[in-house]
């Protein structure tokens, strides 16, 4: 069914060769001589209406930077972000205003993402009133509706953010993101700071809202557990690049890229009888994002690395069987790895 969706529908968001370099401070006197930190180094993917794409990778791999560029609080060095076929990066400011609000974000730290001096109803009301999404007369009704939608009592608006628990605050953040009728919500580790039981509640809420409103999510996380639960497709990032992207279950069951394989083997399995996949330890150091290696970025930690991996950088290539939904990976040795993964499970 997923593949039918993917083939029929136009992508709501297309990201092409997105790049973000940060000049390193203090490495040189003149700005043009400064060395660059390659935070995001040529990322491309598509998002379809109503789906969730999970974006995973370790800290510092650039996944949050991708999310921040999508919502416009970080300016790409180069590349295109097409939302409903309109290029958000090169669009003039006036035109941008209208469409920008369709991309919203939920942050990890729900405490820092709500203004401590304002009551919840004021936090929710201001953007809706400014963008004429609601008129003064019925804004309160709309706020009550939003609060109910995220599972909070109607009168929660009268209170201040600090009066709520972490999970409740995250619900308020979600309500705020929903208030502008967004097409896409970037969830930047929305549950990482919450208790396990609360995590499940928030993830279920996100799923329910998606069913109800057809909103699209980019779900960023560093652990695969939560991502697998909410995402139809998963993209794995390593050092500023996407190394594997494909249907969630397939990435989980049959990872092509050795890094993805290692991430998945690190996910704890609750049921001991189901612990089948042998654990693959990730060894070695992450190369510096300032001095990138010539070949594959993962070669220094990869148990399968060959001479070719050290010499040239693998491109993303299709790895799916004919007729299957697209599943891309950037690895020369993926066939060997995928086969190895299967053997482990039998």
């Amino acid at each position, binding site marked *: 069914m997923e593949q039918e969706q993917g083939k029929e529908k136009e992508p709501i968001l297309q990201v092409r060769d997105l790049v973000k370099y940060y000049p390193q401070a203090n490495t040189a006197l003149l700005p043009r001589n400064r060395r660059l930190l390659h935070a995001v180094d040529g990322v491309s993917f598509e998002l379809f209406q109503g789906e969730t794409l999970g974006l995973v990778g370790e800290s510092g791999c650039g996944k949050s930077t991708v999310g921040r560029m999508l919502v416009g*609080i970080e300016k790409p060095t180069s590349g295109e972000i097409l939302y409903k076929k309109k290029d958000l990066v090169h669009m003039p400011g006036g035109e941008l205003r209208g469409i920008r609000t369709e991309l919203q974000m939920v942050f990890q730290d729900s405490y820092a993402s709500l203004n401590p001096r304002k009551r919840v109803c004021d936090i929710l009301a201001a953007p809706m009133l*400014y963008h004429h999404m609601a008129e003064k007369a019925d804004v309160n009704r709309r706020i009550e509706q939003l609060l109910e939608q995220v599972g909070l009592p109607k009168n929660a608006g009268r209170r201040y953010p600090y009066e709520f628990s972490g999970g409740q605050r995250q619900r308020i953040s979600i309500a705020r993101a929903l208030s*502008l009728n967004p097409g896409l919500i970037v969830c930047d580790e929305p549950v990482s700071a919450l208790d396990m039981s609360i995590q499940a509640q928030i993830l279920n809420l996100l799923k329910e809202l998606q069913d109800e409103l057809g909103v699209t999510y980019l779900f960023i996380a560093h652990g695969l557990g939560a991502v697998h639960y909410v995402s139809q497709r998963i993209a794995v990032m390593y050092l500023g690049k996407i190394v594997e992207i494909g249907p969630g279950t397939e990435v989980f069951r049959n990872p092509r890229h050795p890094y993805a394989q290692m991430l998945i083997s690190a996910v704890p399995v609750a049921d001991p009888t189901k612990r089948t996949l042998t654990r693959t330890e990730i060894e070695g150091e992450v190369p510096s994002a300032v001095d990138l290696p010539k070949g594959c970025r993962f070669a220094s930690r990869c148990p399968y690395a060959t001479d070719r991996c050290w010499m040239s950088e693998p491109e993303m290539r299709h790895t799916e069987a004919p007729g299957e939904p697209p599943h891309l990976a950037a690895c020369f040795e993926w066939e060997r790895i995928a086969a190895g993964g299967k053997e482990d499970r039998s």
Partner: protein
Amino acid sequence: MEESYLQSVIRRFRHHKAGVVSFWIVAVIIVLALLAPVLAPYGPQEITSEFSAAPSLKHLLGTDQIGRDVLSRLLYGTRVSLFVGFMATVISTMLGVLLGLLAGYVGGALDMILMRFTDMVMSFPYILLILVASVIFKPGLWSIILIFGFVDWPGVARLVRGSILSIKEQDYVKSSQIAGMPRSYILFSDILPNVMTNILVFATTVMATSILDEAALSFLGMGIQPPAASLGNMLNGAESVTVLTGMPWLWISPGLVIIILVVCVNFVGDALRDALDPTAVV
């Protein structure tokens, strides 16, 4: 059950015992100073028949060398000192907030220029600057207020700039940007209210130092000019050893009022800082 922000501020302020006591002391002093024309038994410049008299029932705090009633002068002097402290604080805070906002929010070259200018004002010897200024401008009530106003702002400006730089990176400011809110909304609705606490608390210390500075300047003879009374120039008499040892009633009372005012204003500032922070657990 729900309390407004103001109610919770008052509740938290009450937890700070020293702050509450200080608040009432300052309030009483302000009321007494305001009511000076009603309360003072004599006029501030009125010369009575007794010279250098020790405290008595007729002159509760005694009289000075030319026969003026010390209690009356103290009431009027407190009035002047409070006015100087308050106005200087208002002017310097407004200046500091304006320059700090510009530097912190606009940033770039403007930030650089403003902050170097701030450093310059800060690094200039304080008393010397005031002395020079009070020589150029005719010493008087308003010139002193303006001098303090234009000298005290760098601290506020730095504080505001620093707070804005950190608040600008907060996720709730980012959220407003993502929600497409205009810059004016972000500045006045997201950033400024969160800096306000710091400004208010800092203003209390500015007020306390302004009162002290007025006293110091008047003591040096460059402040409020006699015959008008201020707490500082009442202390002026203590320059001579005979007054210091022989007529303690001339300097003990203004000295005490200064100490009490400064300490209490600082305590009120402390209590305010705790009370205004909605996240502080009290």
